[in-house]
């Protein structure tokens, strides 16, 4: 279905999501830009769930967040089109 090597990370049970953002229909780099802006408004320790349907973003978003020192706690496909990327803010 895709050339992308998407790495699935099952969201560990017990992780509670503090906020979420629906970025279906958005493409790179705005998927990252918008989720980064959302995370900036959150507190260290909080968890953001990002809903994406642009496959390259499922690859790019986690990488960009890791580059910024944030923790990716989940990358899961939830249906035919949508993925949830879950990131924990571990630094300002």
């Amino acid at each position, binding site marked *: 279905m895709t050339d992308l090597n998407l790495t699935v990370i099952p969201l560990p049970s017990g992780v509670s999501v503090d906020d979420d953002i*629906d970025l279906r229909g958005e493409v790179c780099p705005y998927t990252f830009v918008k989720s980064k*802006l959302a995370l900036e408004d959150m507190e260290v320790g909080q968890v953001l769930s990002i809903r994406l349907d642009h496959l390259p973003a499922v690859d790019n978003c986690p990488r960009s967040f890791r580059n910024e020192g944030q923790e990716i706690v989940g990358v899961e496909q939830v249906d035919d089109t949508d993925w949830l990327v879950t990131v924990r803010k571990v630094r300002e």
Partner: protein
Amino acid sequence: MSVNVYIPGPFRSATGNMAKVESEGSTVAEALRTLGNRYPAFKSLVFDLNGGVADHVAVFLNNRDIGTLQGDQTAIGEGDEISIVPAMSGGASGWSEEQILRYSRHIVMPQVGGKGQRKLLNAKVLLIGAGGLGSPTAMYLAAAGVGTIGLVDADVVDLSNLQRQLLHDTNDVGKPKVDSGQERINDLNPEVNVIKHRLYLNSENAMEIISGYDIVVNGCDNFPTRYLVNDTCVFLKKPLVDGSILFFEGQATVYLPGKGCYRCVYPAPPPPGMVPSCAEGGVLGVLPGIVGCIEAIETIKLILGLGESLSGRLLLFDALSMEFRQMKLRRDPQCPVCGDHPTVTELIDYEEFCLGIASPTEAAREAIRIG
């Protein structure tokens, strides 16, 4: 009918952390009520006291707002998807769609981000001169989203300016430079607040004008203004980003409060007539583009608190040899303005000063700098 219901993050504690749950019913309302019966906490989140869908919750059926269909009585089909989207205070709040697009290449950078972009938007920068140096500085600061840009310039656009002053157009000849400058800046970025100061800076008005800004960028073309701006910035403790050009050579540096000033380097101007102005001596048109862009970069670094400022270093650029060199600068304890025992403690008459009432020093004799 069996449908999938997407549960938003904030509601997931009510559904056992499930992002998506199956439900049944023939209408949206029925499907949600089925879930409410299974998860009582979910019921209290989604429904109001009258049993309807709460106003702070938007419901979508296959990505369409049910408000545009038949509300919660909308019929559902096998495999349909219902999304519950609560109102959120977080998210990318405070940013318009246009801002997100316009500044995305800043926001993605770890060193800038939304926070850095916000600093740029809140910054107030005063440009002394809307000419050769001020043009590229103004345009890059505007493009970067510096929220308030003040332009000080009393002149009107002359055809001879257009060889290097990119703020102005052929159609602008005869127009005040602050007017055509404002138009160009707002064409580039309509959200920049441009403050026009169509006047000659002097010892009467300098303190009041400069006190309204965070950073001053020098792009002036004469010595009286150069000393006036320097002294005012020292008195008001404002960072001064400095640049000058002549022929094929340029200079740039940054004077930070308490770390030296223009007078530490050049205590007095050269005697009148020793240094030609750009009008007499000429200047390569691209040169102010280089130096003005360096001034813009240093300004943005100061606003963002990034990197190593050019403070304490005088950058020399020679276009003919295509060489950059750096000279170390230091604060002079004997400086008449910022030294340990300053002799100049208020603004003076700089025209007179530059006409050679004060005796020029060696440093000044070596100086070739004109904006």
